[in-house]
């Protein structure tokens, strides 16, 4: 409970939470506010924002409502970001826990694999995965998750390595606990907080990765995503730069919100006397 109190004491963390809730609200309410298909033609192309009350944020090259795409785009970003993060964290915790707890050859093998994933630039691997498996929403989500698991794995492993020799774990061993009980009951609950906090970083990166893919026209073209819109806006950058600018701001705000919430969680769960 004091964790919550500590959280709200930081104005940045509260701001992040408010922004994040706002974006989630946008995603949920998209169907109500803009009931029609966001990718359907809505009006004349390239109307400027704030010039037409029907299209608050204007329209894009094909005459689609930008505001509608922003609202529906929130769904895509949060969905892909969230799902990919879950995948990455799940794989990461599994690999990291086993490597950190057992050490020896298990650790060596798992770390080699982790190193392989980290040596190959993650975006290049993403490109390869997209080239092989295609660009549907599902494949992109899984691909982003697969590219992001090494960092949480290393973090979990580091936590496990340090906790494995902590005296309360040794005490558990002398009491006769089995390995599974030690990992799940004693070490994991203590190792989890930093990893959970790190999930916010993973999510921020996941959103940026997906939007970069969409910008390069390598993500799912049939959904209204912010990255897609930025890519579209590139063609009309000279005059109607707002087509690219607006969704970019949306991405910025979302990633900022996620980062602030993550930092707030970190400070709330690991209080230190002198602040960061």
């Amino acid at each position, binding site marked *: 409970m004091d964790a919550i109190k500590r959280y709200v004491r930081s104005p940045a963390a509260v701001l992040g939470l408010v922004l994040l809730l706002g974006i989630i609200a946008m995603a949920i309410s998209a169907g109500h506010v803009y009931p029609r298909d966001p990718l359907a033609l809505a009006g004349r192309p390239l109307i400027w924002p704030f010039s037409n009350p029907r299209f608050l944020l204007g329209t894009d090259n094909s005459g689609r409502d930008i505001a509608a795409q922003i609202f529906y785009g929130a769904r895509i970003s949060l969905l892909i970001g969230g799902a990919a993060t879950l995948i990455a964290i799940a794989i990461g915790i599994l690999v990291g826990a086993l490597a950190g707890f057992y050490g020896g050859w298990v650790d060596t093998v798992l770390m080699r694999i982790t190193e392989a994933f980290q040596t190959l630039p993650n975006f290049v691997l993403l490109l390869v995965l997209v080239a092989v498996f295609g660009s549907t929403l599902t494949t992109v989500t899984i691909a982003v998750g697969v590219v992001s698991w090494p960092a949480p794995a290393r973090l979990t492993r580091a936590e496990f390595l340090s906790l494995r020799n902590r005296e309360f774990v*040794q*005490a558990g061993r002398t009491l*006769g606990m089995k390995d599974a009980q030690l990992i799940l009951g004693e070490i994991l*609950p203590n190792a989890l907080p930093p990893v959970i906090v790190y999930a916010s970083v993973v999510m921020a990166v996941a959103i940026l990765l997906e939007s970069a893919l969409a910008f390069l026209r390598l993500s799912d073209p049939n959904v209204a995503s912010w990255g897609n819109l930025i890519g579209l806006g590139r063609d009309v950058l000279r005059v109607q730069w707002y087509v690219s600018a607006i969704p970019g701001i949306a991405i910025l705000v979302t990633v900022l919100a996620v980062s602030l919430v993550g930092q707030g969680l970190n400070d709330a769960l690991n209080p230190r006397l002198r602040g960061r």
Partner: protein
Amino acid sequence: MTASPGAVPDAVLSIEGLSVRLPAGADRDRALADVSLSLAANEILCVVGESGSGKSIMANAIMRLLPDRVTIDSGRVMFEGRDLAAASPAEMRKLRGASIAMIFQEPMTALNPLRTIGDQIGEMLSVHTHLARGEINARVQALLADVHIPDPERAAKAYPHELSGGQRQRAMIAMALALDPKVLIADEPTTALDVTTQAQILKLIRELQQRRKTAVLFITHDFGVVAEIADRVVVMQHGVVVEQGPAQSILADPQHAYTRQLIAAVPPLTAPPPRALSDEIILDLSNVSKTYRSGGFLGRGARVTAAVKNVSLVLPRGATLGIVGESGSGKSTLARCIVRLIDPDSGSILLQGRDWAGLRRAELRRETRHIQMVFQDPFASLNPRRKAADLVAQGPIIHGTPRAQALADARDLFALVGLDPSAADRFPHEFSGGQRQRIGLARALALKPAVLIADEPVSALDVSVQAQVLKLLVDLRERLGLSIIFITHDLRVAAQICDRVVVMKDGMVVEHGATADVFGNPWHSYTKALLNSIPGGHFARGREGIPS
């Protein structure tokens, strides 16, 4: 008040009514409340207190090196006619190192790991003087020779991690005395060192003090150290001076109740009269060895450390066997081999006559209830996310006791170890260090083991709390007929509670026997050196022990 209490003629440093405030949210309002004391020239003044007494804060306040939000509220610190509490940062910088120098507790972290020793000592000279490079180097060599560091030339070019703990502390002393300061503040400089090293450093400090006539403010928590080197003593508790005066009178006739408590808590070195021991051997170790290999590439260049070499010992039923040694002696490794947290490379361990070292994992898990362990660090030995009752009940539950029964038993154990049974629902961080050790003890006893291994169980506790926990162990030993292996580096503690004692050095047993024999009449040179190194040994020897 015309003169401050504790004022001394010709005081070099004089603290008058000093109060230091802590930031909001700390457990106390004041770190120091109206503290007054004086330091005369050419004397060693010991400031004694436990953790939280404010002694370190006082040292930092003198140097004006207090942490960010800790501030001097009122009072004066008079030095050479100036009030240091009101001095400007520039003035303080000129004084630090040149007129008042300080040495700290942890020599490893107190030195910059990325710069050589010679560099850091030389920095003291280059900041305060205008000497040339060559002259500075020569002075550094002279200083290192002064503090008796072996091979000063090589030491000057070495990095901190390349020297031993004792050598690092000597380097720090050399650095502090480089400019012949009037005052040397020593903040627990020997606490982190081995007993033998501690004795050497204390000797060095006294020698240098006498030679250079420096005034030394020596902070410690150990009254044994006080007995060893103090001229005068100041006793602090909770930020207040409770008693001060000449060392002789304080040690012989302490006035304040807290001082008496602190002195009484220093375990004396005379062993209690020997008890009758059983004939039955409950634990029998024979030629146990454990070697570590690290590093190396394809089997070459590996570093081999023999942590335990051919150790043999026996534990009679109901007896307490002490394993005594300094860091690196292998005693902790041996303890972990006995409990099978580590597997010994060779040798046999017989528990109640049965083979213990050779048990495989599954059977080991079942049989481990017969040997239990109490750990050293009260903060790390309890899972912070479990309630105390759960921690104690975990063992029996794993071995088949129904949960309700185990929890009820846990509460009984709480009462047995002197804790309030209703506190069993609290989390570890809500207990003090001494209370946590009691919980650890309860956890170990929950499985009703035949043998209890206590790995430095009181080393991390304050002196007064140590005595209480030791008394509890003695009490439980009587009631439950426990057979205990007690591991410690502190001979005084071993003398109080152990029937027999084994002395280890570099992984081997160098001497063993009944406590009274080993301590009263040691034959191995190392044992003799160890006994001679106990600070205030003469003081400890002249007192009574814990009634059993």
